[in-house]
């Protein structure tokens, strides 16, 4: 538990004490005026003391809330940092099975859901234990039989709540899962609205969205009904206890009860007990109100911790053979995916610094997987990879995938993604190299012109060339290209090939998976993959 939470609990105890004093003074004020018939002017100090107690209580309450909220905010930031680290370790290949939307939903919404647990539930859990004990002691001092009523009803409450809570937890986990699925469902259907329109599937999609929302309501109501039930149990006990205490005191004052301490009751002690009875249950009621915070947080934590479990142990980093600083080498590299079998078999390959290598082979022959291993996105099952004497992932590598990765922002924002230091001159030069110089000249705000999402506003070829310009800007010695010209027409392709040739001439090492003859022609050497095995080309 964080120090802020301890401080919050301490403030909460002070608040309880102030409340105790306040209620005692209130009962004494009434007793003095009605029973002792003291003139009101004499009671003025009492009134001032009462106001002071109320002031202390307000300050303590404010301190408790803000301290607990501080703790909640710290925790969320820490979990966000950990999740980012997890994404990084998982890498693009292992995350490919999850939709970005539901992962982002975890990072944003589900981490937010942790707040209630830390900022509200956790401190309240302590206060629900400490503050009622405080009040109970006071009541015990006033009248032990009334204290006994409260004492008997109190332990029944956690019992009932635990029973209800166990179910709530299971249901809430389902709730979190459903919310994530719903987010993915929406984003996917919305993103593909045009496709759905073309296939005449819009009415079906509307139905499916309505069904998803309805399912969400049903799951949500199930969680809520349980949460409400647990607080209703509490309220019931609290209300009944107040009623019983009120009746007991009333009858005791009238002298109808001949047994126990009731003969000692006065209007002061009776009123004091009555005022404390609801406050005795109040911390527990707040806890119940925050119970769905706990359920939501635990549900979110279960999903988040599943991420933690998946983190693979970092394998031992083999020391590459000495004298390897001038080559990229693979020794007996094998790789398999669950559900797809072996994709690479004992691959043996050496690429000298500055060499341009074309990796050819049919679709699905393992070309992309080989590139992923080289980039360090996946650890190989067997064998060794050394990039100029370093293990994969140790050195920056320039990467260009099959789909251009572009963000919402300006041309410059997109270029600086992998080269944060690049200045305008370098960016212009890079764009020139990939044949986008002319297009840039037409942009109204030059490099600061905004780009639409997924490169909208640029043709497929232009978008890919913009991503390629990024490769040009990076200083990485090794460039991995995964079918970089697949979507380009012959003219654009020729421009890109020329840019790549210039890149190769600058001393960089290029390894590219491709089908295009023009790119193959650029390569100094070709190797072919066939069913995951390297064959001569």
């Amino acid at each position, binding site marked *: 538990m964080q120090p802020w939470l301890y401080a919050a609990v301490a403030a909460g105890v002070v608040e309880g004490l102030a409340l105790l004093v306040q209620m005692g003074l209130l009962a004494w004020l009434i007793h003095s005026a009605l029973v002792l018939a003291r003139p009101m002017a004499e009671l003025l100090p009492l009134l001032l003391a009462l106001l002071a107690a109320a002031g202390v209580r*307000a300050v303590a309450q404010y301190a408790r809330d803000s301290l607990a909220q501080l703790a909640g905010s710290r925790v969320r930031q820490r979990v966000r940092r950990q999740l980012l680290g997890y994404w990084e370790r998982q890498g693009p290949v292992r995350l490919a099975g999850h939709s970005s939307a539901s992962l982002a939903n975890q990072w944003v919404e589900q981490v937010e859901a942790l707040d209630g647990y830390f900022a509200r539930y956790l401190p309240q859990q302590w206060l629900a234990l400490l503050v009622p004990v405080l009040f109970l002691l006071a009541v015990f001092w006033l009248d032990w039989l009334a204290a006994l009523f409260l004492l008997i009803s109190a332990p029944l409450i956690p019992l009932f709540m635990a029973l209800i809570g166990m179910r709530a937890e299971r249901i809430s986990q389902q709730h979190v899962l459903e919310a994530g699925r719903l987010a993915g469902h929406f984003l996917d259907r919305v993103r593909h609205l045009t496709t759905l329109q073309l296939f005449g599937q819009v009415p079906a999609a509307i139905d499916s969205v309505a069904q998803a929302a309805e399912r969400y309501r049903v799951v949500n109501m199930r969680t809520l009904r349980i949460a409400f039930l647990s607080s209703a149990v509490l309220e019931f006990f609290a209300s009944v206890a107040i009623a019983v205490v009120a009746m007991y005191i009333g009858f005791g004052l009238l002298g109808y009860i001949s047994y126990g301490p009731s003969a000692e009751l006065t209007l002061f002690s009776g009123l004091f007990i009555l005022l404390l009875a609801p406050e005795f249950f109040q911390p527990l009621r707040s806890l119940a109100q925050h119970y769905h915070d706990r359920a939501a947080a635990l549900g979110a934590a279960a999903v988040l911790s599943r991420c933690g479990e998946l983190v693979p142990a970092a394998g031992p980093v083999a020391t590459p053979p000495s004298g390897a600083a001038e080559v990229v080498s693979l020794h007996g590299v094998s790789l398999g995916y669950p559900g797809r079998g072996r994709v690479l078999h004992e691959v043996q390959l050496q690429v000298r610094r500055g060499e341009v290598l074309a990796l050819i082979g049919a679709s699905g022959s393992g070309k992309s997987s080989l590139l992923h291993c080289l980039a360090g996105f996946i650890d190989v099952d067997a064998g060794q990879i050394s990039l100029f004497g370093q293990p994969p992932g140790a050195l920056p590598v320039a990467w260009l995938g099959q789909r251009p990765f572009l963000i919402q922002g300006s041309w410059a924002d997109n270029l600086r993604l992998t080269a944060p230091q690049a200045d305008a001159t370098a960016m212009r030069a890079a764009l020139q190299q990939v044949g986008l110089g002319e297009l840039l000249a037409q942009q109204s705000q030059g490099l600061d012109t905004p780009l639409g999402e997924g490169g909208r506003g640029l043709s497929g070829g232009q978008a890919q060339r913009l991503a390629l310009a990024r490769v040009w800007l990076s200083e990485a010695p090794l460039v991995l290209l995964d079918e970089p010209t697949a979507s380009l027409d012959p003219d654009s392709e020729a421009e890109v090939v020329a840019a790549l040739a210039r890149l190769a001439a600058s001393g960089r090492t290029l390894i590219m998976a491709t089908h295009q003859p023009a790119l193959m022609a650029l390569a100094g050497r070709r190797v072919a993959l066939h069913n995951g095995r390297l064959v001569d080309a």
Partner: protein
Amino acid sequence: MRELLPWLKLLDEQRRRLLLGALLMAFTLLSAVGLLGLSGWFITATGLTALAWAAGQRVMFDVYVPGGGIRFFALSRTLSRYAERVVNHDTVLRLLATLRSRHFAGLARLDAATLGRLRAAQWLNRLTADIDTLDSLYLRLLAPPVVALAGVLVVCALVGIFHLPLAAALAAALLVLLAGLTWGMGRWCQRLSAGQVGQLDELRLRSIEQLQGLAELRAAGTLGGHQQRLLASSEQMLDEQLTLQRRVALAQALTGLLLMASVLAALWMALQWQQAGLLSGPVAVMLALALLALGEGLTVLPAAFARFGATLAAARRLNEQVALGSRLAEPARPRDVPDRLDIHWQQVSVRHAGIAGLDLQLEAGTRLALIGRSGCGKSTLAALLARQLDPDAGEVRVAGVTLTELALADWHARIAYLTQQAALLHDSVAANLLLGKADASDAELWQVLEAVGLADLVESLPRGLDHWVGESGRQLSGGEGRRLALARVLLKGAPLVILDEPFSGLDQATRERVRQGIEPYLRGRTVLLLGHAPLLLPAADRVVYWRQLQ
């Protein structure tokens, strides 16, 4: 405030459920007031009666009526609170489900160009978060202040029975407090809370981007810097949240203090009148405790109204979207689609694509290949034909009938169109294929997969046709995803087929195989093919180079 009007109207549809919820809410508050007030009266009355008895006076005291009242309020408070919560939350979730599907339906009406101007990530937020934010409209912003107001008025009326000026003073003080907790709190936090939705939105967008660019950023070693920036925006958002939460905490603490002050003021006055013989002791205590019980209705207000700005902002964004309309007009009395699909692009101009006065014909039952470099505008011709947009000038005709005279749905039913960016749904292989033909048998699915050379691959997948295809089809390679999209289009069996770069990302051997495989699906249909070179397309009857058209 006006932005809330359409949503208030929507609430009106559920008027009876909402009214029931509000009544239950009010009943809960009044039960709490009754329980504490009556208990206070009872204890004081018994205490004073006992004193009188001790002094030898003969006073009658009925313990059963107030006792029954106390028990009644104890039960009614519990039951009405539970019922109120279940009823209100169910109503609100019902409203949300309706809102979501209506909103999606509204989006689905829009044309491709308007859709393109919005971004998918923003929509996710609009469809879920914004609509979720609006749930606070009734449950947090409308019902609780009304119920609190009712509570204040009832308690003040109770005081008024015994002393009118005191009741008026109390009512004035409590109404000012109520205004501060609602209107004042809303104003004070409006900017901060309105900004929060945008911050969450931005955070979500940036994290999605980071996930999509994980490969490139990680390879380049710049991922760390991007993570730091993402964390910094998260930190900033959390800081502003803290400021907001502190204001709420302050308002709540002050509410408790001010309520206590008014309880004391009322009690002080009441005790003075009691000593002057104007009021009985039990009544004086009852009035004070009834006031104290109002706290339950007041302390929920600051947190709710701190989020008022967020609700307004969400409503404003959703309204903007509702105001969008499709730029494609639907004919009032659509004509039937002609049987012979002779296509004529007649002097069409599309300004943003640089197409001016272009003329082209495609005879029914033939195949036309249109060759040009990427970005030249040939895809725009296909989009015109599929009526994803209308030309700025000229028209597209089918056997003499202008496309705008046909119902969009009728026309789309005649077309199978493979777009350049055709993407796969985050769903199973089968579900993606069934988009093309909802009632296709498994045999038909396997047949079309065979045609595009994917049958072996899908067979080798652990769950076969039910295998889940990643976002944008990422668990398949680029070429495999492309072929699956092609299979989906072919399966539709529409008389007019448009294929935009159908073989991009395929190696030569696969290309040849697919070219032959899909031949039966193209036979006898009207086909428009778009590509960089005739070699990269299925065989055509006629080849037109873009240069020749301009």
